[in-house]
């Protein structure tokens, strides 16, 4: 209970949870506020013709249209669902793989530990974004492939954290007590060690969801993620790149093509970072007692 109380008394964490709640609402009611034009492909943004130049906000297109007349409002609304899917799937899959490998390394120790941790080191030496770019290129352009590419290069952090946590908890008195009572290795690992080692992993997950959303939208922005016309914020910003300089008379004529998809990305990532920051303050034992 004190955890919840602490989470909901700090203004920044309240702001984070509120923002996140708004995004969940938008994601849930997407079919009602932006009815799909193609019912079987709801993530395809409807187009209003094929004219290249973006059109400013109007009654027909609340936030205007992007290059190629894609409706920005529709893309922003359905992009919320994409962002949740991408952030959760990539982070949780990476986390599962990492926890699995880290636990094995800590459990068996010795030679297996050494090999697995060197593999982690090797994966760490590749710059995350570049490595993901390469894999996304090799697999071919699609949202699923770019997510797969990111999963392949995000698990290492979890493996390291869970391994060191397990090694730490193994030496703590209550684990020794369980062993003295005759509990088997597997039982100690599953019942006593892993549940206690999961707190830092939990914090890492909440801090990483935002970064993963940034990474996927960056891939989309570079043309390696979602297909053209897919409701994805990064992809929509890449459509704005050619219109940065405005028209002859008005330099800021196409501001809406950047700002409308840009604001949701920043707020979405911000909400996860605020939540993660709050969780870390509350769950990290070293932070307890300090404010």
């Amino acid at each position: 209970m004190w955890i919840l109380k602490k989470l909901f008394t700090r203004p920044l964490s309240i702001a984070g949870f509120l923002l996140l709640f708004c995004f969940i609402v938008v994601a849930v009611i997407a079919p009602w506020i932006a009815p799909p034009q193609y019912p079987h492909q709801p993530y395809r943004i409807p187009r209003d013709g094929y004219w290249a130049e973006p059109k400013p906000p109007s009654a027909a297109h609340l936030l205007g249209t992007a290059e190629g007349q894609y409706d920005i409002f529709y893309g922003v609304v359905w992009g919320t669902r994409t962002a949740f899917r991408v952030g959760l799937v990539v982070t949780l899959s990476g986390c599962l793989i990492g926890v699995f490998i880290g636990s094995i390394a800590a459990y068996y120790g010795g030679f297996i530990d050494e090999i697995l941790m060197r593999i982690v080191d090797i994966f760490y030496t590749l710059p995350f974004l570049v490595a993901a770019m390469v894999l996304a290129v090799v697999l071919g352009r699609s949202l699923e492939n770019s997510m797969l590419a990111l999963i392949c290069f995000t698990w290492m952090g979890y493996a390291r954290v869970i391994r060191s946590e397990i090694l730490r908890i193994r030496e703590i008195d209550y684990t020794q007590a369980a062993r003295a009572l005759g509990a088997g290795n597997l039982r100690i690992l599953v019942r006593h060690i892993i549940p206690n080692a999961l707190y830092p992993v939990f914090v890492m997950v909440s801090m990483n969801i935002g970064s993963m959303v940034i990474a996927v939208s960056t891939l989309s922005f570079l043309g390696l993620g979602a297909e053209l016309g897919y409701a994805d914020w990064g992809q929509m910003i890449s459509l704005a790149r050619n219109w940065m300089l405005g028209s002859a008379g008005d330099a800021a004529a196409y501001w809406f093509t950047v700002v409308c998809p840009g604001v949701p990305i920043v707020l979405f990532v911000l909400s996860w970072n605020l939540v993660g920051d709050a969780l870390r303050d509350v769950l990290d034992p070293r932070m307890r007692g300090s404010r």
Partner: protein
Amino acid sequence: MIAYIVRRLLLLPVVIAGVSVLIFSLMMLMSPFSRLALYVRDPDALKQGPEELAEMVEALGLNDPAWVQYTRWMNEVLHGNFGWSESARQPVLQAITRLLPASAELTLYAAFPVVFIGIWLGKKAAVYQDMAIDHVTRVTAIVGWSFPTFVFGILMLLLFYGMHKWFPPGRLSLWASRIVYSETFTSYTGMHTVDAVLNGDLRVLGDALRHLVLPVITLAYVSWALILRLMRSSMLETLRQDYIITARSKGLSERVVVNRHAQRNALLPVTTVAGLMVANLLNGVVVTETIFNFRGLGAFAATAAVQLDMPGILGFSLFNGVLLVVTNLVVDILYASFDPRVRLE
């Protein structure tokens, strides 16, 4: 200590070999035809008909078992042949050496404010915990951390180039690049600002700086949060130590306590993320250079990736891998020599 350094140095080739295996396995997912360019020295050879290409695949043994191909590829790489980069229209090694100074220039200018302002503000935030400066830096850091580099960069471009024409994209204006690439201008380092000073040409210096402002701010803004938050928490922990209380009770002024006693020890954990910061900056460079049309290594990697230019991507990844391995090694050794409590076995 020396034994540790030697052991790490011996391990270095092992890790680098591991990186090359990883990169190579990624590449093996491609068809033999896409991998042809890795082995070809003459670009025109790639423009032949399908039969000739199939013959080349056979002649180069691209259908052989993976490990045979790996040893063959490593042999080429060790002899300095990284293949032909179709997107840069030059050999990969040449492209990397030519573009490196541009990225180095950008990264160095961005790293200085990140490190110094980050550490200074982190210290202030810890000393004045829960006061205005702590809250302001916390919010700016979290917001900065939440900004994707490409969104921030495009907004900067919209504001300061689209609307005000103050800071143009690219590396140099046309007139300045005519001077830089002329006979009279000697290129010492390839970094335009340094070369301009060495050549005594202040107009070129001004132009180069003007082009650097936006990319440097973009690259720095999104990565300074890490250092700031780390410095803050490390400083908070140090300020709670007994020897700080001792220092205060001796009657030392708060400034001496903070700057002489606490700061030194608080800096130690911060140095460990230097490797992470280099990785961050490298990732940032790819996006920043692409947005600002700044012709450096990052932009090269992005174009290579989009155009499926495998030799280019591989060369860049290998370069990055080696850079990161070496950075981490240097950081670990420095850390051990700073902190007598760290024993290396």
